[in-house]
């Protein structure tokens, strides 16, 4: 059988004086490395296993340390064992000879070998130079720190959210804990990072146990401000070197989910640590996707209203116009479940449910909308309700009330975003005109009964129509708490 013998491995470990700590680091690396490519490293960048220039053949660039084929055999043996518990188990692996075993020892005897944690949000009370306080949803806190070794594997495992307005022009940073073996210090950086940019190079000191402090690294060149609202997958390639003239050596990859919003979320969202109404990453996924590319509040709210209206997951309750997702509080949890393909509380909604959804998701990305009603008991023009594509006048002619996402004081002089229905956008929206042009009211002035705005598009110009459709902010303007 080819490869090393157990006795050779034992003798080599004794001869090199390999410490128990180094053995443990190597075993942990071999047992947690996800695939052969990660074990072999990406040539010509060094690491994670590097060629010892003083032993065997050649140097790192022209020669090689452990390649993909041998790396795969090492992982195959790991699979057959379950996991490595001793370095002697590296015996009898075809192609894994003295030179490669030496490289393995060399690479980990003096190395920065671990990113322990990464914090994007390290100031609970502010988010001008770091990320926002987050939750996953109503019942689950966001991970703290955002990224943790052995726990964070996928992009969504490590979320972070930044507000464009509050961070604009400010230096941003992250905080990182690292581990090293046999080193008192090293330069560390990360490349890649997409619109969050690379992590700037920094000298990191390690104590005798190989632990760094909580190191603040600068984000060298974040570029997420200009493109506006969005959600991104961020990949960083962490690297280290002993001296500024050394080539960089690979450390590891970390993955992160980045949410970019316009400005601080408004109610019902808060930034109070521990509060269940901290921005939910489950909601940010939808809100940032729907408002993608928006660089101002009106555009963001309009896009959210449009995407909600066209989502295909809910339709108007033409039977009774009942509120299904809560009228004292808003069950956002169940609405998100529904929008993501689950059952939620069913597929029917009314205007209250729609106003809640549009305003709550818009406010999450930094808009400033309210839920507010108009009424009471008024006639309607033909409209297209959410989930339908035909013109109709619901309920034999009228609504007892209607509710929308509304700006400002929610008066006739303020603008509405109605995700629940499309009005007729042509010159004559009344039933008398058979021609209709669908128009989703986004950032549309509520208006009066003399000028063609939202109110006259929704209601006919009659005493029982437009005149009866009055803004009711005094008793109904609110932002329902979320569940």
């Amino acid at each position, binding site marked *: 059988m080819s490869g090393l013998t157990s006795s050779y491995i034992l003798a080599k470990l004794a001869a090199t004086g390999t410490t128990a700590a180094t053995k443990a680091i190597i075993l942990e690396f071999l047992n947690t490395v996800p695939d052969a490519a990660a074990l072999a490293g990406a040539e010509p960048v060094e690491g994670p296993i590097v060629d010892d220039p003083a032993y065997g053949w050649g140097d790192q660039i022209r020669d090689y340390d452990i390649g993909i084929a041998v790396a795969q055999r090492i992982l195959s043996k790991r699979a057959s064992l379950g996991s490595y518990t001793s370095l002697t188990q590296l015996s009898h692996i075809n192609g894994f000879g003295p030179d490669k075993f030496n490289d393995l020892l060399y690479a980990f005897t003096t190395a920065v070998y671990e990113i322990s944690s990464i914090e994007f949000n390290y100031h609970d009370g502010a988010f001008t130079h770091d990320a926002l306080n987050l939750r996953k949803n109503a019942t689950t806190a966001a991970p703290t720190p955002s990224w943790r070794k052995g726990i964070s594997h996928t992009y969504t495992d490590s979320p972070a959210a930044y507000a464009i307005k509050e961070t604009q022009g400010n230096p941003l940073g992250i905080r990182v804990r690292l581990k090293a073996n046999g080193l008192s210090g090293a330069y560390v950086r990360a490349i890649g990072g997409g619109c969050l940019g690379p992590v700037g190079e920094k000298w990191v000191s390690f104590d005798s146990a190989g632990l760094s402090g909580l190191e603040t690294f600068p984000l060298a060149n974040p570029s997420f401000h200009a493109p506006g609202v969005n959600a991104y997958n961020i990949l960083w390639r962490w690297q280290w070197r002993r001296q500024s003239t050394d080539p960089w050596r690979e450390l590891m990859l970390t993955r992160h989910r980045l949410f970019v919003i316009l400005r601080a979320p408004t109610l019902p969202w808060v930034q109070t640590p521990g509060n269940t109404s901290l921005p939910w990453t489950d909601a940010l996924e939808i809100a940032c996707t729907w408002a993608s590319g928006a660089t101002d509040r009106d555009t963001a709210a309009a896009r959210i209203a449009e995407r909600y209206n066209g989502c295909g997951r809910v339709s108007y309750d033409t039977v*009774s116009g009942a509120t299904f997702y*809560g009228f004292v*509080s808003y069950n956002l949890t169940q609405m998100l479940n529904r929008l993501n393909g689950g*059952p939620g*509380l069913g597929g029917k909604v009314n205007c209250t449910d729609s106003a809640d959804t549009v305003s709550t998701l818009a406010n999450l990305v930094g808009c400033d909308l309210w839920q507010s009603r108009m009424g009471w008991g008024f006639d309607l023009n033909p409209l297209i309700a959410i989930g339908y594509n035909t013109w109709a006048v619901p*309920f034999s002619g009228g609504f007892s*009330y209607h509710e929308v996402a509304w700006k400002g004081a929610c008066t006739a002089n303020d603008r509405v975003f109605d995700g629940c229905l499309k009005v007729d956008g042509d010159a004559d929206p009344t039933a008398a005109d058979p021609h209709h042009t669908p128009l989703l009211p986004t950032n549309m002035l509520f208006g009066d009964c003399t000028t063609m705005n939202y109110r006259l598009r929704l209601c006919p110009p009659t005493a029982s129509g437009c005149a009866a459709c009055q803004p009711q902010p005094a008793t109904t303007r609110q932002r329902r708490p979320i569940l």
Partner: protein
Amino acid sequence: MDTPYDLQAWADATSRGRRLYNYNYRMSGDELRGWELINVVPMENAPGHHEIVYLWEKKGSAGQELVRIGIAEADDWRAAQYQLHEQLRHSMRPDLPRGTGKLAAIGDVNYASQEPGGKLVASLVFSLGNVTFAVSSVGDKTVDVSAIAQRLDHTLGEPPAKEELKTGKAERLATAALKVKKGQMSTVVERLPERATTGWHKLIAPDGELKREDDAIVYVSPSTGEKKVDRYHVAA
């Protein structure tokens, strides 16, 4: 907001529900044959108002036929009717019709709405005693919910069936006759058990009304004498 719903008229017409009290009724998943319970969600619609929404899917309908059943418990039949009134206030349809024919007998007060241009009853909201129900078709394919509403009315409004008592599914609790005075409260249950540790309790008085006072259930009789309140327990 003015509504056409007259709480006083509802109260004047209420008789059966005054004598009923249900505590901690829960749907467990075997109540509707041919349907699967796919979601159970506690709602917070008002302080002290315990509503649970049950979402049922017709087996084999691939999510097209869904029924949402909201069941909310209040402290007494008046509070339940107030909750029903609140619920109707949050419906955009201005002219919700009352149930007619067989449906008129459901609950103490009910509203039954048909799908536009059709005959299927797609929504039936009602109160019965201290409980409010909202049964709605909420899938892409409309479902007639009247049979489900009738079943709920029967389940909570009538004593357990003999078969249920015989098999031990339900138990009639021994209760002594109460010596009551006209218009005065008599305690029937000293202290209601915690919701998490008990099943469903149903009380039916011969007349008068039942209501909750703090953690107790009390009976107010319209006449002086000896009265017996039937009490049943159904295991969770």
